[in-house]
């Protein structure tokens, strides 16, 4: 069974990601499954009775369409088709800060260790690190920068609202 980082631990992953080929049946497989946004939106009322269905969203899709479903979703995943495609960071941030999602927010796809700190800060708390990478080594990169300048999901306040700035203790040479 594959593993993911959930918050700050490596755990077994219980969820399957359903990536149906175009034109195939919109039927939702059994078991813990993350379905594409379109399938969710098309069958939300039908699927809603199941607690083992989550959704994954592609970077070009609008997270606002999930607004009314978020309190029913145990997992929302955001797909990163390439790690250099940064749209998912804004999607994650909007799901947390704008639409109030509080469940598991998972990064899937081309998720690499060096992205974890940024992903965590915009609101992700689960990371399906790409299978060829050492997920335990990735854990140590979860917090690369201990006192960031800006507010995001984490920390919610910028440095200038968090701490008294300008306390220079020594002048570097």
């Amino acid at each position, binding site marked *: 069974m594959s593993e993911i980082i959930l918050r700050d631990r490596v755990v077994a992953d219980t969820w399957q990601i359903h990536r149906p080929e175009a034109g195939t049946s919109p039927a939702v497989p059994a078991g813990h499954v993350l379905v594409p946004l379109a399938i969710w939106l098309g069958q939300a009322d039908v699927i809603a009775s199941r607690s083992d269905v989550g959704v994954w969203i592609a970077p070009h899709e609008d997270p606002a369409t999930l607004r009314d479903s978020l309190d029913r979703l145990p997992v929302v995943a955001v797909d990163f088709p390439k790690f250099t495609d940064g749209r998912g*960071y804004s999607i994650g941030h909007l799901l947390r800060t704008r639409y109030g999602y509080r469940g598991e927010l998972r990064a899937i796809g081309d998720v690499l260790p060096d992205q974890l700190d*940024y992903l965590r*800060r915009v609101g992700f708390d689960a990371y399906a690190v790409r299978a060829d990478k050492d997920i335990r080594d990735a854990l140590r990169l979860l917090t690369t*920068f201990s*006192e960031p300048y800006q507010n995001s999901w984490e920390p919610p306040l*910028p440095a*200038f*609202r968090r701490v008294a700035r300008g306390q220079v203790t020594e002048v570097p040479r």
Partner: protein
Amino acid sequence: MAHAAAGNAFDIGELAGMYVYDQIDRTIVAERVAQYRDQLRRFQAGTLSEDEFRPLRLQNGLYIQKHAPMLRVAIPYGLLSSTQLRMLATIARKYDRGYAHFTTRQNIQYNWPRLEDTGDILADLASVEMHAIQTSGNCVRNITSDEFAGIAPDEILDPRPMAEILRQWSTFHPEFAFLPRKFKIAVSAAAEDRAATAFHDIGLYLEKDAAGGIRVRVLVGGGMGRTPIVGVVIRQDLPWEHTLTYVEAILRVYNRHGRRDNMYKARIKILVKALGPDEFARQVEEEWVHLKDGAGLLTREEYDRVAAYFVAPVHATLPSVDAAHEARLADDVPFRRWAGRAVRPHRVPGYRAVVLSLKPTGVPPGDVTADQMNRIADWAERFGFGELRVSHEQNVILPDVRLSDLHELWQEARAHGLATANQGLLTDIICCPGGDFCSLANAKSIPIAEAVQRRFDDLDYLHDIGEINLNISGCMNSCGHHHAGHIGILGVDKDGAEWYQVSIGGADGSSAGRGRSAIGKVIGPSFAADAMPEVIARLIETYLELRADGERFIDVVERTGIAPFKTRVYATPVAAVQRAEEAVDV
């Protein structure tokens, strides 16, 4: 004489007029060095592939170039201390070949570092509160500004506090590290725009309202590159405390909707053009509504904290006219000529800013040796407050020189190849490293600059031609700002050969072009490299024949259009004329 106590080393902490790192800034830069070392180690061990490492190293300013890696170091808003410049010199000696190159975005580049040394270089930079963070890559780049900030008489307010606040905000912003494309922000706050602000992805003009409050005029979508566009205003009168939230709203709209399918159409200007500025502005405002009074709202305390670092040093009370200086100007013709180009006004009586030209003939524009850097650092202390500026024209500025010190400074600068009197003239060429160094380039640019400088090496003639910006880029990425040159030269590749396309009438927003920001117009088919000096000569001759009283080259182009210039340049084949001239010489 100089007013810094002789023999005293300058501490960064003693400097008036510069931001000083606190514990948070130092921690962030230290953690960056550690992060980069770890990434480099994994790359060398093979656990980070070339494709995975590339975006990471680029966000640390590291390119893999033709001959060696190239490391680009940020000089935020062009401000440097003498201590920092000495460290840049030390790095040039220790890890490179004893020189470095100032760029058109207030960065400095090393052309020959070894990959395995780059972590140590970043650590050395961190020791003087410098870094290479986000000097490349598809992220928010170094924030640039007016090189005369804090001293220019036409300044409305000091743009540096806001530039520093934006530097911090943009540094490792978690949401905007993987944008569709690079993203450049400039801040300007004077009557004259000296930062080419309208050519940035976001240009911010700080202004004052009737009550003295700071307001921001926000431009988006400016840029050079393949599709040069002058930015458009999407917001007037934004209260200053909303600057970060407004910029965040712009970046979120861009990050979500900017094109990612074609890197040539990925800049924000393409999105603004596709949506139309009104619709783009509407989307930004819609996004901003959610942010405007949130945590990103700037506080007066924070602005004041940062602004306090930029308070002007204590200048001496001096007469506005120095008799001895006037006498030297009258008696010493070379000095007078230099002073006429190099010396710029200062808001404090008895002081001037001095632009040291890095454009002597035969030296790649913007290149500076380690020895010169050390000398300039010494002068910054002897003839100022230990502070320096670098400009997007690739020159270095001593910002606080007494009138009475100008002659002594000039003599020393002359002894070190830094007293060329061509600032703002034809041979003060803005030029990218081009095909000699850059792996992106289609053609060489440095040899073109040198050939033009050699053709126009007569200072009297240069001064007669007057104010003109000649800008050269070795490819469409436009690092040499050719689109904004009164004369612009672009290197192009045709079937493996290097050709040069010429445009005229561009302007970067500065007073050299009467404050206009404009994209140059291409005059016609491209030329071979050896034709370029003659092409420029024909453009200049056309101008000299057409000009009326006081008209600059750019004024004539504005009045007549490109037609007379085009006619003259293409009247006879350029290469044939050159051969004929050579025959006559023989």
